[in-house]
């Protein structure tokens, strides 16, 4: 066997091991879009609260005004839904461009590894809302999202892990300083997503 052949053999083994065990069509652009949705949502939410109360303090008074409360909930759900849809659509498009099937064992593992911490977090946040513990909502969003990213990073670009660690750190800080919860939320879901998405786009997708 020629040396050149061995090199190409080893390279093909390595690429196959990676392609079969990691979903590499995750779109960086969808991170940027999710960040933009989060910023727009936070801006609208800020204005709604500001109009009603004149200042932005997370307080029990939200529950007194059920209209504000429902509006905020609606905005948050819309951001979540739009972000997930964008991520799915762009990643499917990316996979198709590469001629890969997007519904394969790796993408299934990726989704289930993300889903467990996310659903736990979602239920936890619903419980917090039902118990009117609004202080910790922003923190819980960030922490559980960070955990789901770290668990997902096994099945996609390992860089995703670092975004997860940053989100968890922000979440813990938000728990420490709940008055500024919204600002940590904006920083984590808005700015970090945009920075991370842009980095990933230039590193892998171009």
């Amino acid at each position: 066997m020629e040396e050149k052949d061995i090199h190409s053999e080893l390279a093909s083994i390595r690429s196959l091991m990676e392609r079969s065990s990691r979903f590499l069509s995750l779109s960086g652009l969808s991170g940027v879009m999710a960040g933009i949705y989060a910023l727009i949502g936070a801006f609208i939410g800020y204005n709604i609260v500001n109009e009603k109360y004149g200042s932005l303090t997370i307080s029990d008074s939200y529950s007194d005004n059920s209209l504000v409360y429902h509006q905020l909930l609606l905005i948050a759900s819309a951001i979540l839904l739009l972000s997930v849809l964008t991520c799915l659509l762009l990643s499917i498009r990316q996979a198709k461009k590469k001629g890969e099937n997007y519904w394969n064992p790796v993408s299934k593992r990726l989704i289930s590894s993300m889903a467990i911490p996310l659903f736990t977090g979602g239920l936890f946040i619903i419980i917090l809302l039902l118990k009117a513990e609004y202080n910790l909502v922003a923190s819980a969003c960030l922490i559980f999202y960070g955990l789901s990213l770290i668990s997902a990073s096994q099945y996609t670009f390992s860089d995703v892990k670092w975004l997860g660690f940053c989100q968890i750190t922000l979440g813990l800080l938000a728990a420490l300083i709940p008055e500024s919860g919204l600002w940590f939320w904006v920083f984590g879901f808005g700015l970090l997503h945009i920075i991370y998405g842009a980095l990933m786009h230039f590193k892998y997708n171009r």
Partner: protein
Amino acid sequence: MKRSLEQFNKAFENRIRLQIMSVLVANENYDFNSLKELLEVTDGNLASHLKALEKEEYILVYKTFIGRKPNTQYTVSEKGRSAFIKHLEALENLIKQQKKQ
């Protein structure tokens, strides 16, 4: 040089068999259809290579059903994993030896 050639595993001479092993070593398990898609081979071709690896006891086969559709999962055995690693080491040694010459 001669010794290192002896370490090459006959079962891995075929490229598709080596590719199957690469996928199974990197994953807990993989099913037939996904393997077929990934390696871009025909049903019959893949099945015959899987059979050969099964005969060597390099892979384990689990047959299940999803609804009415058969779903066959493959995992690598300990024997298969160490044979695969030995084969890779032999390839690397060959490169090293050729560099020395």
